[in-house]
């Protein structure tokens, strides 16, 4: 991932059972925070052609 210029924190994995709603919310918060901290994804995203 890093090799391709993607920050590892952009991709998250987790295992949550269907009864663990609390854990689900915790993970959402954590993932959102980490991605937010990285700022917008610019390295890999398809850049739109800039019209002069």
């Amino acid at each position: 991932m890093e090799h391709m210029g993607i920050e590892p924190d952009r991709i998250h994995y987790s295992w949550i059972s269907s009864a663990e709603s609390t854990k689900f919310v915790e993970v959402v918060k954590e993932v959102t925070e980490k991605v937010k901290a990285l700022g917008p994804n610019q390295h890999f995203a398809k850049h739109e052609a800039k019209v002069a």
Partner: protein
Amino acid sequence: MITFKLNGKKVQGEEGQYILQVAEKHGVDIPTLCHHKALDPAGMCRICTVELFDGRRTRFVTACNYPIWEGMEVKTDTDVVHEGRKLIVEMLYARCPEVPLLKKLAKTYNIESPRFKPEGDDCILCGLCTRICKKMGNSAITLTGRGLELNIDTPFNVQSDICMACGACASLCPTGHITLDRVNNLFTRQKNVRTIPSEYEMGLKGRKPVYVPYAQAVPNTPAIDRDVCVHFKTGGCKVCAEFCGVDAIDYAMQDEIVELEVGSIILAPGFEPFDPSKFDAYNYANHPNVITSMEMERVLSASGPTEGHLVRLSDHKEPKKIAWFQCVGSRDLNRCDNSYCSSVCCMYAIKEAVIAKEHAGDDLECTIFYMDMRTHGKDFERFYNSAQEKGVRFVRSRVHTIDPVPGSDDLAVRYVTESGELQNETFDQVVLSVGLQTNPETVALAEKLGIELTEGNFCKTEIFEPVETSQKGIYVCGAFQGPKDIPQSVIDASAAAASAGAALSSARNTRTLVPEVIPETNVFGERPRIGVFVCRCGINIAGVVDVPAVRDYAATLPYVEYFSDNLYSCAQDTQETMTQIIKQKNLNRVVVAACTPKTHEPLFQETLINAGLNKYLFEMCNIRNQDSWVHKNNPELATEKAKDLVRMAVSKVALMQPLEEAELQVNQTAMVIGGGIAGMSAASTLAQQGYETHIVEKSDALGGQALNLFKTISGDDVQEKLSHLIADIDQNENIHIHLNTELKNVEGFVGSFKATLAADGEENELEHGVAVVATGASALKPEEYHYGDDPRILTSLELDRKFMDKDPSLKAMNSAVFIQCVGSREPDRPYCSRVCCTHAIDNALELKKINPEMSVYILYRDIRTYGEREYLYREAREHGIIFIRYSLENKPVVNLDDGDITIMVTDHVLGRPLEIVADLVTLASAVVPNKNEALARFFKVPLNDDGFFVEKHAKLGPSEFATDGVFLCGLAHYPKPIDESVVQGRAAASRAVTLLARETIHTSGTIAETVPINCSSCEVCISICPYSAPSFIEEGPFAGKAQINPVLCKGCGLCVASCRSGAIKLKGFDNDQIFAQIFAMNEAV
């Protein structure tokens, strides 16, 4: 509709609405203190003041109770408005400087300290309490006094009988002025005012009078607790009815008595946990840190009262030391009447200790105080061993007293160690592992039904008929039959269903209603015409998400031909309207943006079918459970999210294709492999249900291991019972017995298996729809304790044989020794053989019966007479049988000198070596499975490390395999006594009947499919699939390429993701469909 301007934007509201309501809908924030949506607005606090321009001049009005009118202009965000609010806050803050709510408000308005003199009150006189009290139909409290003396109180400042302590005032009070304590001390004369304890949370949390008993309840609809609901006391309130969007609340509903005519009855009333309050010495009733194991379950649960944070209840401190006490309310005749073992507590205590350590970290000290560790279930012994490795401490001691440590919330525990030393230890928390007992109501029911109970108040059943009560036609399952765990209860349940169903089998399919089949429209090659239905779900979605905006947004998406919003999409009439619209507008794809597909997808698919569309031309997007309900404070972003989700769904559904569900005939014949107790029970159950059944037995007789057994624990002659059972099987027309027969090969899959049977050098083919594996196990031939060196050293089964032969030598013996765990619970066989403790004790008693003067010793590690088998253990001690415990590290030694057998063992009480001269040594040899690898391969079913077959699910699917159409019972699953083998045989048959009775199977449409031409024959899919669905094509142009059996595929997609050639597609979740969803995201960025 009334149109007016709100902060310069045109907005619409309905006639009679107030400014606040419209502002809320449009996400405009107006602060309130005295407002509550359940009450009529009062305009008391005036903090909601807004600026109103009526065309001529500007006025200030309170937004909560000012009705909207055409053309008005409202501003909520001007400097003047803020100034006014600030002054109000400043004055209230001066009145109540300590109230958190006002501190927070003051901070928002940058007020450091009010200019007015602080008063130290905590009531802002908002009147919410008095208004809600009136709404409750009670008016027990009111505003009393005038001017500066204005106050909330009961009339004349006396505690009244009028106040029913419903707590509505306290629940609404924004400042904390009114608390339940205040209600208790000043308002009401009722005593013991408290929150309503939630039954599900074991009273550790409160609940409302309108409540869903627990999150997974079926049906998942709220109920009103009439005993506590205020409406049923005063006729007031009715708030729930006002808010219910579908008029579902009917206060006049009465309990009904419904009469049903039934052919049989199954009793499954369960158990109640033992209440340890009466054990004064444990202080359960008085000390918050002494809790029951059921309470501990809730504390450890992520959705429990502490959200899974392990804290003790007195001070919410994280405990560092927790103790579990076993056998609280079990194996106890001194302090309660439950002398049986509750079977499940040892295992659940270990589980709780391990989970507690997982939650709190390794430095949490967990100690379990026990008498015998009873981990006799499948894989339980391994769990016990691993708990010890993880640092859970096991202390063999029964603790008598728990003393609170003065000046702290800790608990002092005094106990005697094995070596007799008195120990004092302090714990932060003590968990009482409470036993299972039958509820008195169940006992009363049993009496009414005329059902016999056992000494422990469980339902009395026969060993060979374990789910039949003493009343014909009434069956029993679960913990009412005897204390048991989940897998055993599930097995019972299937067996009871089979027994109850046998009587009704002739009536099968006689009352089935056949739905009208609507021909499916062919949409192949058509341009997508998508209909988008956005659901409001009353206010559940529309209260947060701007539904009209989402609907209008959907209209702009490609291929969308129709769009609308529904109040309740799942309502019957809406469904009919949707069907009509699909037909009229010729829609060929449908998107419903509503709740969750997990509950509602089948319903909407039904709608599609009714409209003549293939049900897979559908996609749901979840804008309630995963949007409006979880983002209610962020309506703007929630609406944004809903639009994204709709766009993603629309782009996916455009690519959906009609999918076919193949129909497959189920061969109505069953094959049972193994003719032991379990196999015969399965066969007779299948035959009773009317299915032709073949028993394949490799030996020359039916009966299996039961042929070696003498008596059951209730004293029945096993051989006599067995011969009846075999005779019944012999005479049954539906059962064909193949003795001396071996299974050579099995081909096919659920519904159409083909087996090759070999007997007398001849091979025959047997076609069958389902198979039951009952291949059994056998007794280990011991390799220790001089087994085989002397005829007086034998195994338990060999002793049974002596009893059966009425061997006269037994009477002459003076001393007999039983050695337990021979080959079980050893490092290379780390499981408990479950049956040996009971068997040894039973045989020891039999020896005592033959010669009461005989000295009988049982050398054991833990006595595992679970359930009501415990009575036998008690009886054995009463008869003077001597129990000596040994440890794995210090096993007994058997010596043969000059024809004498002597046994050396270290006595666990004296700690000294003991020499016993024995005339008879019986070894409780392990139950060893017939590790049948060929069979495992034939049916593609797994074996575990010990050689037992692995069931579909350890708890919920104990009698079936993950492979469809193959079922499991008896010793091949795990060691078990006769009654449990009988019941599992029935259970396996019962599960098989659910398949046979359908006659045809429909495959799912969302399954994997190969494109053989792209396949590189790498075999990864074949090795990775848990359901054995992929295989290589055997002939034709694509021979050697992979194919997927649609019947076996569960559509998990594992093979699709692992296919390196891109040769597998998952219908309904294919790459292009998921990519379409991902690409649709792009537009949002």
